[in-house]
């Protein structure tokens, strides 16, 4: 009888311990749903939700905010997407820096910092990614989520064995169903990513966007990094931008979007609308297969001794800076790329230029860090 009583107490102890652990895990799980703080600049005209263009998105985790900067002076309209893949933080943070600093003197700019909003609420299984990272500002730290490449499985489950892209019929691995950048042009009654893709396509059409960017990152061992990928109709624009960037000491490879690889932004945006699509890639060690400790320091500093070793023994076929690929450098490359493409666009279409102000230069980001161009967090209420 006494033994039975001891077992009961042991069982109650284990149960209590399990409840505490479950509580901690549940708190972390739910914290991933807390929206990231983004504080727009004074140049903001209005903000809204993507469901204004695709009503089927309303109330879902795909209904992401957009920020509009309208100069009210006639000119072209530009769209910039960050966070298509929420595990590629430079694209997300580059658009946050835009939202918090941008002023538009001529034309209009739409910014969507978290294109795949659903993916910001979960991390990638088995990758050991941190759930969030913080960037120091002049007073206090700004905290941002680090998500997964695709949508949260809770928003689309289960994945099919094979992902069938519509309307092309192209077949890809089932998990690509949750990849926004395989889902264009999308459908209003499709998966959550197809509905987001459809919303972005509708925005491009309704707002008559002429120039559109999709900001990405990739592992240092992937050949397409520090690259600008363009639809064939933006070939000259991309070429001029690459030459402009070279004058600033930034090397980029120009790539043309393959016509037979469907579902990607740089292909479907250009095929479907009059827009000139540009996708940019920076080099991000935390996505690499050679990486070691996968932590916040790697996100911010981008230094990994294994990539340095690979560089020293001549195994890096592409450029990897031994000083690391810091978040400041990667954000700087994205913003410099956008500025260079806009300059090239203005050179090609001088009668209707797009005039941007307030964005930090690449050298400013390198010398002062990203935090210098983010607004400090509001003081915590006592």
């Amino acid at each position, binding site marked *: 009888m006494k033994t039975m009583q001891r077992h009961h107490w042991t069982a109650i102890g284990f149960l209590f311990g399990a409840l505490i652990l479950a509580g901690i895990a549940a708190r972390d799980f739910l914290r991933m749903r807390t929206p990231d703080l983004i504080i727009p600049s004074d140049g903001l005209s209005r903000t809204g939700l993507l469901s204004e263009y695709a009503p089927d998105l309303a109330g879902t985790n795909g209904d992401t905010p957009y920020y509009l900067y309208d100069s009210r002076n006639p000119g072209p309209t530009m769209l910039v997407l960050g966070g298509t893949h929420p595990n590629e933080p430079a694209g997300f943070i580059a658009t946050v820096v835009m939202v918090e600093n941008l002023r538009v003197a001529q034309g209009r700019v739409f910014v969507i910092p978290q294109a795949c909003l659903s993916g910001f609420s979960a991390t990638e299984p088995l990758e050991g990614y941190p759930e969030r990272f913080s960037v120091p500002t002049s007073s206090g730290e700004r905290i941002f989520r680090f998500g997964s490449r695709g949508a949260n499985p809770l928003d689309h489950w289960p994945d099919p064995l094979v992902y069938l892209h519509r309307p092309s019929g192209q077949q890809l691995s089932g998990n690509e169903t949750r990849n926004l950048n395989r889902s264009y042009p999308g459908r209003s009654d499709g998966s959550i990513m197809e509905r987001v893709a459809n919303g972005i396509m509708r925005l491009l059409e309704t707002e008559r966007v002429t120039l559109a960017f999709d900001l990405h990152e990739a592992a240092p061992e992937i050949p397409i990094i520090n690259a600008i990928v363009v639809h064939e109709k933006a070939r000259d624009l*991309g070429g001029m931008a690459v030459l402009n960037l070279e004058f600033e000491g930034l*090397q980029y490879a*120009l*790539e*043309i*979007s*393959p*016509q037979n690889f469907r579902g990607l932004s740089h292909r479907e945006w250009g095929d479907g609308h009059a827009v000139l699509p540009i996708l940019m890639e920076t080099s991000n060690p935390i996505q690499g297969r050679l990486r070691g400790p996968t932590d916040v320091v790697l996100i911010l500093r981008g230094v990994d001794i294994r990539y340095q070793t690979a560089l020293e023994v001549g195994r890096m076929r592409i450029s990897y800076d031994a000083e690391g690929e810091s978040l400041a450098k990667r954000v700087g490359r994205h913003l410099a790329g956008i500025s260079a493409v806009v300059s090239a666009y203005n050179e090609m279409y001088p009668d209707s230029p797009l005039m941007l102000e307030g964005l930090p230069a690449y050298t400013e980001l390198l010398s002062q860090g990203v935090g210098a161009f983010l607004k400090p967090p509001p003081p915590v209420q006592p």
Partner: protein
Amino acid sequence: MNIIIQRAAIVLLALVIIAGIAPAQGGKKFETPVLVTSAGQSADVTLVSMLFKRANLAAKPAPQAKAGDLDNVKTLVVVPGFSSKGLGAAGISREDELKRIKQLLEAAAAKKIPVLMMHIGGKPRRGQQSDDFCKMAAEAANHLIVVKQGDEDGFFSTIAKDAKKPIDVVDKIADAAKPLAALFQ
């Protein structure tokens, strides 16, 4: 007096020989119109075409040029560098592309059209996938222009040195404009 005449004749002869050898060693004359093609379907061909445009030199970009496109062409410019996206965009395999370049270079040689190779893509356009294209184009070229980062291992310099071909190694893509203009003067 005879000695002076003899020495003057020797100097004159030497000058004639040097003047004769110099073009053979690479002072090949390049003229417009120019056909610019890719070897590996990288978009670097677009950037090279822009350099020609900025130098006011008539150049037609034809990333997938074939032997038939060489009619009335006076210079063939080959821009080597593998791009999986580019080959995907063209809808051809790497093997098809190697075959096309081989046939194009053979046709240019048969028509005595001088070949200029321009490698501007740096490290991303080198390595296992690109080097077959780079080697084929460099060996067939009369002159090489290379952005330094693509020649850090001396790949192009060695080919040029062994075959006694002239090579211009420049720091940046934009710097290639200067030797380019000089070649077409």
